[in-house]
């Protein structure tokens, strides 16, 4: 019985993964841009990006998801629920990823920038070749935490009708009258997915760790 349930819900896995794979990189690109602007930008850029982070992180993800969803699937832009939901999750995550990356950028001592400038690098070159490679390494462990949060938050697009794991579990629960088994199977699948995301990123952290860097 459980195996039947698992195989039906399994078809939702690809959508859950797809939502995550759109949201996470979108949030990373946006978050990295914001973090750079917040760390190296002028006064106004700093204030604006800080305000963005504050507002976005002050509202529950599911509320933001609904606001963004209705904006992205309205008259001006009209995305499918899948794309609207995924992009919205990415935008929500960007504020959290910005904070992670900002912390990592700030943890690189100012001397690194000075030394890079001293051998003739421009500010941009120094950020690209010296600051970012160090900051991104530092950011991997907290970022891996954010990755599993986005994966778990992808279940919120259930509410938009996107047929991902939870939505499939709910359909199954309705047709079979076996909610415990249906949602239990969904929980199990999420658990395994989150587990693999964490392990995978642990491996990445170990691979990129410098021999002298502490865990």
């Amino acid at each position, binding site marked *: 019985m459980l195996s039947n349930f698992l195989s039906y819900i399994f078809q939702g896995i690809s959508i859950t993964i797809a939502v995550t794979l759109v949201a996470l990189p979108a949030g990373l690109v946006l978050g990295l841009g914001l973090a750079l602007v917040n760390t190296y930008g002028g006064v106004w850029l700093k204030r604006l990006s800080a305000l963005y982070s504050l507002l976005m992180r002050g509202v529950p993800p599911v509320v933001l998801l609904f606001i963004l969803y209705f904006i992205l699937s309205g008259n001006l832009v009209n995305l499918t629920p899948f794309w609207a939901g995924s992009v919205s999750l990415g935008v929500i995550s960007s504020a959290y990823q910005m904070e992670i990356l900002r912390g990592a950028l700030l943890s690189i001592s100012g001397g690194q920038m*000075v030394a890079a400038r001293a051998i003739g690098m421009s500010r941009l070159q120094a950020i690209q070749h010296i600051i970012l490679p160090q900051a991104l390494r530092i950011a991997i462990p907290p970022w891996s935490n954010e990755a599993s949060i986005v994966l778990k938050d992808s279940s919120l697009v259930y509410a938009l009708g996107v047929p991902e794991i939870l939505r499939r579990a709910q359909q199954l629960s309705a047709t079979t009258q076996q909610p415990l088994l249906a949602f239990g199977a969904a929980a199990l699948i999420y658990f395994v997915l989150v587990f693999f995301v964490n392990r995978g990123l642990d491996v990445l952290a170990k691979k990129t760790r410098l021999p002298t860097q502490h865990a």
Partner: protein
Amino acid sequence: MDSPILQAKNLTKIYGQNVIFQDISLDVYRGETIVIIGPSGTGKSTLLRCMNLLTPIDSGKIFLNGKEITARDANEDKVRQQIGMVFQNFLLFNHLTAFDNVMIGLSKVKKMPKAQAREKALYELNRVGLSDRADHYPGQLSGGQLQRVGIARALAMDPSVMLFDEPTSALDPELIGEVLGVMETLSREHMTMLVVTHEMGFAREVANRIVFMEKGSIVEQGAPDDLFYRPQHERTREFLWKITELYGKKEEKS
């Protein structure tokens, strides 16, 4: 001697209300090793940082090979490629091996072809006696080795002047020698060097000229023998007396 390679004219640096140094003029000639000495907090390090534009000056002009580098249209990045700098706290790039620390300026700033950059980086590491530490990360090197990599990194850019900002003051005493040794060799090879240090032995033996700075201005300058044995100013005499009290005795013992 020909015209100076690096020339500072009436430099002044002010932080808020604090005058760091005022009206400093200094000519550095090709192949010269100049050692700047003086009490802590007299603006020696700031002066060095201003010389390669890492810290902006408030007034005055700096010329490199006769061209004003403090001019508005001067390309700071280009200028710094020609002026090497060695830092008190090394400031190696933490995510790169010793080899890559030396090479990154060549490949990313000078855009040198990979093979050529590699060869050059190895040559410079060899020059400071560290070719066997090429693949070590900064965290795996001793202070003396770190500083020698720092010197190699600066040398790799083929600068016309090298600035040393207290290169040995963060080192354990037993590691100072290896760094000073590299610097002495450089000096003998006629690298143009401007060195801020408290190592009086190095100043006496290696420098062509010694500049004594106090409270933000140059009090006196001259050949080591003149300055050490026939100082013209009372303040120079006092400083040298104090510093030999402090460091001289240690030197005699070791």
